[in-house]
């Protein structure tokens, strides 16, 4: 399995190493650096790199490469998934608490994912149903593909060994799910109820997927008119966006980004609301729109100046959208009730819904 682990930061320094068997010299990372050089961008570094004596399997997160050194055949996903889990743990550990003196203690509990003797003065359980829409919208505004990736993230601080059940108004929506190991699979199979003894604190209870075969509501539309002309070095740029199927909720936190072709020198734009930035080096346009007011649709208009002498770009840029809609799960999923067994106190319970754009692209 994993022989050694190296952590490499953005500037290419190995700042941490750990060896589980004998020590592997950090020079093995040279092969990794070579591959990194060959790949233009960090995300194009192949996750699996063979070297004469080892295999390097890496994940890239938070601008850090976690490079595992492997000596023999192993399911690559085993290592990759494990590395991601390590990163999650780091994030959890360093993200929330101050790096204190207290080392976490290994504890054997009857329920492996929950420590014993949990005590709180305020007992509370919050569940966030978060759905992300992945979509590709074509030039004419019709949906090429759209799917929903949903999760239920929980924040549970309950004393003792509570046993929770969570039921849905329309569990039928969830036909492609994966669970936290605490969920009793058989109960789900037979009754479509989530029954579980929760881990303490933050955890992802469930993720689900509503596939492209289903109809997915698209909450925003984008009208665009982007044109470059061969003759002049000026192009036109105009986008307007508005709400579509929002179930009466406000679309907020809207952010538009678009990668302009290399030949674009600069952009002179006026937004009707929000702020916009064009980075002439990376050619990235971003427009922080904010809320969409259906009475006054946000727009961004202006001209594009192209490098003189180059021909017009083949392709119009793709528009990437981000947005949020509070109190709405776009798939229509609704939690019916949350019950607690096994403990006597009355916990404070809360459910929140949210829809976000995932990988939401509009081709122009």
């Amino acid at each position, binding site marked *: 399995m994993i022989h050694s682990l190296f952590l490499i930061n953005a500037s290419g320094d190995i700042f941490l190493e750990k060896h589980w068997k004998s020590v592997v010299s950090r020079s093995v990372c040279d092969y990794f650096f070579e591959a990194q050089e060959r790949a233009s961008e960090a995300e194009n570094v192949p996750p699996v790199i063979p070297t004469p004596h080892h295999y390097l399997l890496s994940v890239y997160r938070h601008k850090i490469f976690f490079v595992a050194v492997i000596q023999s055949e192993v399911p690559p996903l085993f290592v990759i998934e494990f590395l991601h889990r390590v990163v999650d743990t780091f994030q959890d550990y360093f993200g929330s608490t101050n790096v204190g003196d207290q080392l976490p203690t290994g504890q054997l509990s009857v329920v492996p994912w929950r420590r014993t003797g949990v005590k709180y003065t305020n007992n509370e359980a919050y569940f966030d149903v978060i759905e992300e829409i992945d979509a590709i919208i074509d030039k004419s505004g019709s949906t090429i593909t759209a799917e929903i990736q949903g999760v239920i993230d929980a924040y549970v601080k309950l004393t003792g060994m509570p046993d929770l059940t969570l039921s849905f108004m329309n569990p039928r929506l969830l036909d492609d799910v994966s669970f936290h190991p605490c969920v009793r699979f*058989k109960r789900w199979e037979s009754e479509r109820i989530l029954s579980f003894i929760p881990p303490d604190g933050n955890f992802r209870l469930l993720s689900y997927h509503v596939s492209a075969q289903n109809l997915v509501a698209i909450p925003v539309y984008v009208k665009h008119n982007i044109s470059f002309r061969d003759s002049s070095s000026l192009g036109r740029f105009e986008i307007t966006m508005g709400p579509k199927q929002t179930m009466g909720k406000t679309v907020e936190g809207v952010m538009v980004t678009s990668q302009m072709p290399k030949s674009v020198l600069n952009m002179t734009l006026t937004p009707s609301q929000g702020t916009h930035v064009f980075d002439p080096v990376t050619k990235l346009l971003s427009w922080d729109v904010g809320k969409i007011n259906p009475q006054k649709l946000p727009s961004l208009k202006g001209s594009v100046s192209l490098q003189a002498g180059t021909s017009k770009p083949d392709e119009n840029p793709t528009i990437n959208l981000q947005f949020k809609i509070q109190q709405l799960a776009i798939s229509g999923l609704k939690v019916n009730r949350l019950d607690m067994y096994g403990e006597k106190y009355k916990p404070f319970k809360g459910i929140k819904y949210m829809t976000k754009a995932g990988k939401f692209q509009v081709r122009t």
Partner: protein
Amino acid sequence: MSGNGLTYSEHGGEAAPELAQEAAPAVTPSAPAAFGLFSSDTKKNEDLKQMLESSKDSAKLDAMKRIVGMIAKGKNASELFPAVVKNVASKNIEIKKLVYVYLMRYAEEQQDLALLSISTFQRALKDPNQLIRASALRVLSSIRVPIIVPIMMLAIKEASSDLSPYVRKNAAHAIQKLYSLDPEQKEMLIEVIEKLLKDRSTLVAGSVVMAFEEVCPDRIDLIHKNYRKLCNLLVDVEEWGQVVIIHMLTRYARTQFVSPWKVDEVVDEYNENNFYESDEEQKEKDQKMKTTYAMDPDHRLLLRNTKPLLQSRNAAVVMAVAQLYWHLAPKSEAGIVSKSLVRLLRSNREVQYIVLQNIATMSIQRKGMFEPYLKSFYVRSTDPTMIKTLKLEILTNLANEANISTLLREFQTYVKSQDKQFAAATIQAIGRCATNITEVTDTCLNGLVCLLSNRDEIVVAESVVVIKKLLQTQPAHHGEIIKHMAKLLDNITVPVARASILWLIGEYCERVPKIAPDVLRKTAKSFTNEDDLVKLQILNLGAKLYLTNSKQTKLLTQYVLNLGKYDQSYDIRDRTRFIRQLIVPNEKSGALSKYAKKIFLAQKPAPLLESPFKDRDHFQLGTLSHTLNSQATGYLELSDWPEVAPDPSVRNVEMAELAKEWTGILGKPKKEKPTEKFYSESEEEEDESASTSSSGSGSDSESEKEDKEEGSTDESSGSSSPSEESTDSESDSKESAAKKTCRAVNESDSEVIKKKAEGISKKRSTSSSSDTEYTSSDESSTGSKSESDSKSDSESGKSRNATSNKKEEKPVQDRKNPKTQDMFLLDLDDFCPVTPVAVPRAAVLSPSLAADLEGLSLSSSSVIDVTTQACVPTKTHELLHRMSGKGLAAHYHFSRQPGIFGDRMVPVQVTVTNTTDQKIENIHIGEKKLPPGMRMHEFNPIECLEPGGSLTATMGIDFCDSTQTASFQLCTKDDQFNVNIQPPVGELLLPVTMSEKDFKKEQGMLTGMNETSATIAVAPQNSARLIITERVVKAANLGVVPSGQDNIHRFAAKTVHSGSLMLVTVELKESSTAQLIINTEKTVIGSVLLRELKPVLSQG
């Protein structure tokens, strides 16, 4: 292999300080001169040494943190070894942990000094705390000092029989480490592996299989007997263990079962021609084919038990199941993995990369699997290039006549992508679609020709190359395109593209007779400046023109040949010489030149445009080798299916409990050698599948006895003094067993016993149906053979279930085999296995049987006996309200009458009442929706219920020791009503009686994780013994254990399904409180029971 929750947090503990260190003095400049760094380092080390000598733990801890930080940063901290190693015996657990981390890193370098610490570990290996034992073993096996190999070996052996499954897990981890340190230990290690493979803890399973894979993957004989157990444990093993086990079982299955694909093959051929054939049609076909092939039940077991894991949150687990289905499932079933794999595509880029690679390989062979998910592979502009190319590859594989137009439209977008590398790949893809789907060849060709006017050279060049290949497949009528391309030659500079155009013009020079010589003229001029690749094609063009049109081109060709003769590249010079000899006739050239035209202008086969993933399928999916497309070190080849399956009986021996559980129902599998003679001939003749599943005879009582033995051995080895009672009772039971053997050797005798047992149980049961039921179901079991797998598992399962029910009536025989006593028998419960510490089980008989045996003066001398509970709760639960039942009302209550439907069924009395003024006819149970493993024994249909009338029927439900709901339909002649029964946990028990001494002994073995307790309030009026007893027994089906102390009340029971002991103690304390303690291996049920008993005594 450090996956599960436990080691996980342990590792967290190790990793954390390393990072913590990083956070604090991370600013240490790494750039300055080496000298400066060095001196500051030694200085620092001095103060570290002082801190380590300090008497304060806090200083030591600080020092250790900094040292571990140095290690993590890759700095040399070896000179601190003597100072650090002194602290190995520190009482402070935090310091200890960090010293361990240090030792693991440097012990190999300083072996002599490291030896100083060994005795500390040896002591720690005997520590009462399992965590300390485990970590001592971990460190001991991690310090790579060859001299201590014997000590390690000994420690591993001892740990492998430790009471704590966590320590045993660590023993399995240590095996791999010792093996890599000293491969000579292999044989001894295999022995330990063999032992640990038999372990029934889910905690151990993954780790030991990992050790097996590292040390002796070829010893599949060790797996046979554990196969079913592993299959059944799988769902409850931690995720990382699941991956390892699934991969191992995939290999195993390929050596043991016959191919399920032979049946499919015919279908497949058919499929290739029409892959649109509707599913139904195909299913029909499959069904027809399958009548000749029956899947080995063990093969089916593996497929069935891995399927739920597709729902895992862990991508590696999902992938492992997917590859298992790919390599083992009938082709018609492999499709179920698609959805889950597609779901993984939302994951991180690395996961996507691996999953897409595997899908690419799959989609070549079986398009149909992923066709419905076509759109999930559409490319986003934000995807990394490697992901884009893989998606494109899959889209190309999935292209067919139906979706090609959509796909081509999508491809058009990709061609325009700013990522030119990806655009080029798209052009290749279009080319492949064009050759594969003849309907669109022309469309694609035209599209590609349009691309020739693209501004980007890479795009044009790629198009040229692809067009060249396409034209070759369709050489006729494409003169125009060739002309167009000839014109391009003036502008295009990419060598491959130029070479391709030249080749095309040469090959089809007769179609463009005017242009070709002109092209040669132009290129002759530029010859010296061309790339080698282009030069070779100029020579080719010259040769071909010379042969077809020598009049116009003779001189030009000779000019080119002369240029080639003096070229710098020997390749070019070589080719020039070769061509000249062939085409220019002279005395020396001989016979060959006559055929020059045939040689140069032969019909050339069109190139195949193939997927680069075409040749990957010989690697097992999901492996590193598959990802790299080359064999990685340690790759284990997946063997071909055997022509004839090896003897399947190697698996069905020994694991009495397991064998039966593969059907998820009651069955009594046969014990290896001894029991055969106990069977009547007729049973022996029963068909294979039925006999493997159910004709065995390992009964509960027997296996429990085995367990008990195991437990007592453990006990003695585990350094606690073996109590005399245990030896006594053991020999007692042996004696009695022997006695019984004498009785039962004679078959007819056993037959008599059986009949008696049946007769008695019939009398006792309120339902008169049980006997007849058994007979009829027995018949159906014989009939089920032919349709066994192909039709439906549940069907055959049911019938087997019934057969085994019948056999259950006579486990008398099973108790009589003294030989089986010294076998290691595992009693596993696959439904909710809890980390079982090796704990002895009491020999519990099914209650009815116990009573019968008493009557036959065969009374067992086992310590614990099931009693019949006198107290029956009066509480009834509503099953169906009369309003929703259209006048039919139903209630149920738990009658606690043991053993009506076999010893794993909880009897439930259902009372139906007719509140209408009409007769209600034919009340029966309809469709059942039970969680897997759960079974139900229906009551006999009630033919007619008069208005106002009320009838009581008894049914049995095996809840598998869980409080899961049994849902089913209550049907009348005209209606169906969905109803549910959810058992209170107290009804999942059967009361047992035992002596106080036995109780204490058993309790002593169920401590630690197996104990839950709570302090409860006791209302003053409830503190009388009688009242406590009454209340507790009412709340849960417990047996009262006589108690010598007034303030302590003890109750005992076993769980209905698995027969695990459940010990309840109520210890009255002062001021109206009491301590409620529950000891059981079934910790989940235990904690639920604790919760339910809590309010019982506090209420007034």
